[in-house]
Structures are given as structure tokens and as C-alpha cells.
């Protein structure tokens, strides 16, 4: 099954989803399509002009352009997903390398689609990690 992972570039989630036999939908694959098709040969841009319009499918015009740009890339992944894993409080999804408003909108879009979803916390202790991995394993093995 196609599993949307949030954060969509997470190494931990990507590896776990693959390890337990499913297909992770990640932002890296989407970026690869753009890189290989030479659509974003203009550093530091990561989106194309079409993406700017596509972003409006997921967020209103009054929403900051950074959020719309992110959603233009992440939104189609949510549309194609059959299940989702949301990792809360990942340290790199907030601050200069992330965008909390986008995270909130992504959570909203996933819930709106009523996908089978599991919400886990970023592991900070061994006990957290143990619970996280076991819950992810049980969730992925339970999907049909």
C-alpha cells in the first residue's frame, strides 16, 4: 500500500515503511521527478510555475506562499495515499528548516481524507522509540 509519511522527507519513517513491506510516499521522489525533467534548473527554487497554481488546491490565496509551495509538492502525495503515518514534534519540522503551519495543514488534509492513520511522537528516549517502532509495525502489518 502507498503510505504517506509526515515529515515527508523522514529517513526513519521511510525506512520503517519499506522494511515492513509498503511503499512510502516521500517528497524526495517528487523532487526527483522535477530534477530529472530539468524543471527546476533555477536554484534555489524547488517548485515550478505550475506548482504555484497547484498549491491553491490545498490552501487559500491568503496563505503565505511558502506554505502553498510546500503543499503543491506534498498535497498530491496525500491525494494518492492509502494510509498515513504522522510523526509529531520532529525537531527538523519546525524552525529554519520546517514550517509548522504547513504541518498543521497537512494534518488537516490527512484527517479530511479519513485515511487509516497512526500518529506517533518523535522518539527521544529508548522507551519512546520502542513504543513508536512497535506501533508502526503493528499498524503497517494490519493494513490490507
Amino acid at each position, binding site marked *: 500500500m502507498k503510505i504517506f509519511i509526515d515529515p515527508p*522527507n*523522514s*529517513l*526513519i519513517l*521511510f*525506512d*520503517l515503511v*519499506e*522494511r515492513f513491506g509498503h511503499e512510502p510516499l*516521500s*517528497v*524526495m*521522489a*517528487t*523532487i*526527483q521527478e*522535477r*530534477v*530529472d525533467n530539468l524543471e527546476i*534548473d533555477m*536554484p*534555489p527554487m524547488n517548485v515550478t510555475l505550475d506548482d504555484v497554481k497547484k498549491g491553491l488546491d490545498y490552501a487559500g490565496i491568503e496563505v503565505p506562499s511558502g506554505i502553498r509551495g510546500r503543499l503543491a509538492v506534498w498535497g498530491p502525495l496525500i491525494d494518492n495515499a492509502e494510509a498515513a503515518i504522522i510523526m509529531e514534534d520532529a*525537531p*527538523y519540522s519546525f524552525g529554519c*528548516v520546517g514550517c509548522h503551519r504547513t504541518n498543521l495543514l497537512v494534518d488537516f488534509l490527512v484527517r479530511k481524507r479519513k485515511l487509516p492513520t497512526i500518529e506517533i511522537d*518523535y*522518539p*527521544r*528516549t*529508548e*522507551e*519512546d*522509540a*520502542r*513504543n*513508536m*517502532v*512497535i*506501533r508502526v*509495525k*503493528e499498524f503497517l502489518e494490519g493494513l490490507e
Partner: protein
Amino acid sequence: MVRETRLIVISPLSEITPDQITRKVHSLGYEVTVKETCYGAVLEGPPETVSKVMDELRALDPLGIYSKIRGFPLGDPKRCRAQHGSRPGFSQLQTEWQSLSLVEKGLECAMRGEKAETKDVPDRIPVKDLQRFCEEVE
């Protein structure tokens, strides 16, 4: 040609070294490109071949080797630090690399068939109760 580029990241607890990874890839004789890095290696080639190589590499240390795909190809001037690429981010990978030791412990428990501990999460207040509280305050 369709390509797949993969980051191979070695957990801090693993005894495998990036050098062992690259030597193993070379010894397999597949038509893939591999580059040794501080966190593991970057592997690039046709998707089917990369998948075969990944299976061989995971066998070296099943719980200590992690991977994800990468959007940019090996040595892409838009990304490569050696050529002052404009996207030199490493902070996320560094953070996740540090957490891999925890994930590895978690995987060990999951493979042993342990069950997750359930925490008692208090139920949300029903809307009617919340309304009643608000009216009482007014």
C-alpha cells in the same frame, strides 16, 4: 535512463563502517555508482539494481543500516557541497542519524514480538460539558 539515488545511513550503534559498505558494493560487481560519506554512502543506479544491492547491504547488519531515496543525483552541482551547491542542508540527516540508535533498539524489541505499552490518555471533554462549564463561569 530511470535512476534511483539512495542515502545509506549507518546507525551509531552499528560496527559497520562506510568503507565496508563501499567495498561490499564494489565486490558485488553491479553497474551502480557508490560514494563513501561520513554517515554511510550514496548509491545510484537503475532502481532494480539498487534494490538488489540494498538487500545485500542490509544483510550485513539488518538493524543497523537504514536508507531513503534522494531527489538529487550524485554530484549534482545544484546540491553538491564540493561545488558550492545552493542546497547544502545536513542538519536533518544529522538529527535523524543520532536517533537511529534509539530506533535500532526499538526494532530489536519489535522483532522479538514485544507489544507496545498503552498509556492512559484522558478522554476529551464532551462539548455539552464544556458548554455547561462556560455557562457556569458566565
